[in-house]
């Protein structure tokens, strides 16, 4: 039981950091980013590339994968999403869905990820098959490390949003964009920064996941669905909601898969059941709305 709980928390931590980026983008811009999972994949690819080329540890490569995803996200927003926003939410939904298809196919080119699965392996990978036993509970060391990284990033994000001018401008843009514009905030730039920041969080998650899971061009879709469930569960646009929602989803999946006969094959169903229950009885999510 304790083992299952910790297993759920570990994977839930990674879910949380992915959903954090998605909810940030939605909270500030009301854009549902269908390409969010692809930023996870790009983060995985950057870590894979850096490890296979210069042997850089995936956790250290976060300092490159996060800015790389930020840049791609920022450019995607400034050149495409911003223009599509003028046509309404449906346009941004379709545009990001198109961006998702493009990124998957682009990354599947032979000189990038190619059509096959890839995986970080080798004796120089510290995290490979590294299991840490604390009492009777065993931890995947990489996911445990990822859990701590997630916790630190959530704290940093909270400080950023509450203590810095740009963070305050992001919150103002989320709550009242027109008023923010009137008081001199460049909402367009702030939106671009927010989109990039959301993508960077996905990139961090990608680097963490690359330590443990296979890497392929379309893997992002697996995480996009989970992120949507978490965002709805926690409350669309809610940072604490995404963090807690991620952990709840991870723990629910873990208990369902372990204790319900045949549950492993239906682990996504448990998340969807929560999704439906929340939509029916608390459509605003567990933590309401707002950044």
């Amino acid at each position: 039981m304790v083992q299952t709980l910790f297993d759920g928390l570990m994977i839930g931590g990674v879910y949380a950091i992915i959903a954090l980026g998605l909810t940030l983008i939605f909270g500030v811009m009301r854009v549902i980013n269908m390409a969010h999972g692809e930023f996870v994949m790009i983060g995985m690819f950057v870590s894979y590339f850096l490890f296979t080329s210069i042997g850089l540890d995936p956790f250290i490569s976060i300092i490159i994968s996060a800015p790389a995803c930020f840049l791609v996200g920022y450019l995607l927003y400034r050149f495409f999403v911003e223009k599509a926003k003028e046509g309404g939410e449906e346009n941004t939904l379709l545009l990001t869905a198109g961006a998702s298809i493009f990124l998957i196919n682009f990354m599947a080119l032979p000189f990038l990820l190619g059509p096959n699965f890839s995986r970080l392996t080798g004796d120089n990978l510290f995290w490979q098959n590294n299991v840490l036993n604390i009492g009777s509970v065993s931890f995947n060391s990489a996911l445990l490390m990822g859990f701590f990284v997630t916790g630190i990033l959530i704290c940093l994000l909270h400080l950023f949003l509450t203590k810095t001018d740009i963070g305050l401008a992001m919150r103002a843009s989320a709550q009242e964009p027109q008023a923010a514009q009137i008081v001199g905030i460049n909402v367009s730039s702030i939106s671009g920064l927010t989109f990039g920041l959301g993508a960077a969080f996905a990139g961090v998650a990608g680097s963490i996941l690359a330590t443990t899971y296979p890497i392929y061009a379309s893997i992002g879709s697996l995480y996009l669905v989970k992120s949507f469930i978490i965002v709805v569960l926690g409350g669309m646009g809610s940072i604490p909601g995404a963090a807690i929602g991620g952990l709840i989803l991870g723990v629910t999946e873990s208990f369902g898969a372990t204790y319900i006969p045949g549950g492993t094959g239906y682990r996504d169903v448990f998340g969807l059941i929560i999704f439906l229950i929340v939509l029916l009885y608390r459509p605003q999510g567990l933590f309401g709305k707002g950044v």
Partner: protein
Amino acid sequence: MSIVKKGLILFSFVFIVLIISGCNSENASSEGDTIKIGAVLPMTGGNAVFGEKFEQAYTMAAEEINEAGGVNGKEIEIVIEDSEGDAQNARSATEKLVSDDGILALTGGRSSGVTLVEAQVAEENQIPYLIDHGSSDLATMEGYTYVYRLNPTAGMYPNALLDYFNENPPESIAHINVDNAFGEAVYDYGLQGYVENSDVEYEMFEYTAGELDLKPIMEQAKGLNPEVVLMTSGNDNDAAQLMMAANEASLSPELFVGTGAGHSIMGFAEQAGDLSETVLTAGPWHGDKNDEEYQAFFDKFTETYGNEPGEHEIEGYTAIYVLADAFERAEELNRESVLSALDSTDLDTIFGPIKFEDFDGYTNQNRAITDVSQWINGKMVTVYPEDQAQQELVPFQGWD
């Protein structure tokens, strides 16, 4: 133009097309300098690694045959269509191959789902199809006339393992099984009889192919405290992920055994690293490693492609030789004559003797040999049956 005229023109056009296509299907034959073999393979997508293996094996066999003078002076040409590993794509890919009259026989398929579709289309279009890896038992249990198989079926994969179990009966088996056609066939046609007729305590735990977090299922299996953990996976990613999950769950049976497929290719050892050590795999025979012909094939393949051949490459290589043999014995170079020639195939290959027979509900099925191999220091060595064994079976040594 009146409606009647338009109708007549349309009717004439359709009539001409029907006549042309009808003539072609009856006379599908090789009239040029080449004899073509069609193959549906996953060249892109998650299973592309397997497509590449077969393409290399086919190419090497075809080049060898052509360099030796070809088949009655004609060169063998392999035409590959990409299925992306998807059964729906497989239909259109096979239909495209069938429409090429120069193609006298089909092979390939790789996965069970694609193989079943390719077999159905081959039967509908009356073209011989030699399965070289697809293992769904159904493909040679449907009574098809045009479908042959040289490799063992999924139900036959555990044959050598079950012989081992009969000699060394385990008390309990936890079977971590993939919930697709392959996993179903491994149990229904392979393990079920043994489980029902022995005293073994058996429990199956199913997972979905591609699932990333498999630790919960290993925790469940741990509850059984199994002597043997049997694992069925269709690809090397799942196979590696299973061992990683077993490591995290500290599941420690006496034996970890894969039922071929994902556990029997180099990608598994590369991805699982040290975790692959002592993992057994029960499936198609990997050839007599002491045989000179096998050694020549092994060395040449390794030198040409930079990777050692496994069961897939041996099967693909053998398939081209079996078809070339049939072409050579066919009275005429057309599909019907090739079919008749395949019926009387009796060939010794590096994959063992090939002869297509009807037995135990199968039709045109080769009684393919199976073995039990083990990953030792990143290489797969045969450990059972004893007369083929390169060394003794080593029990699982624990996670430390």
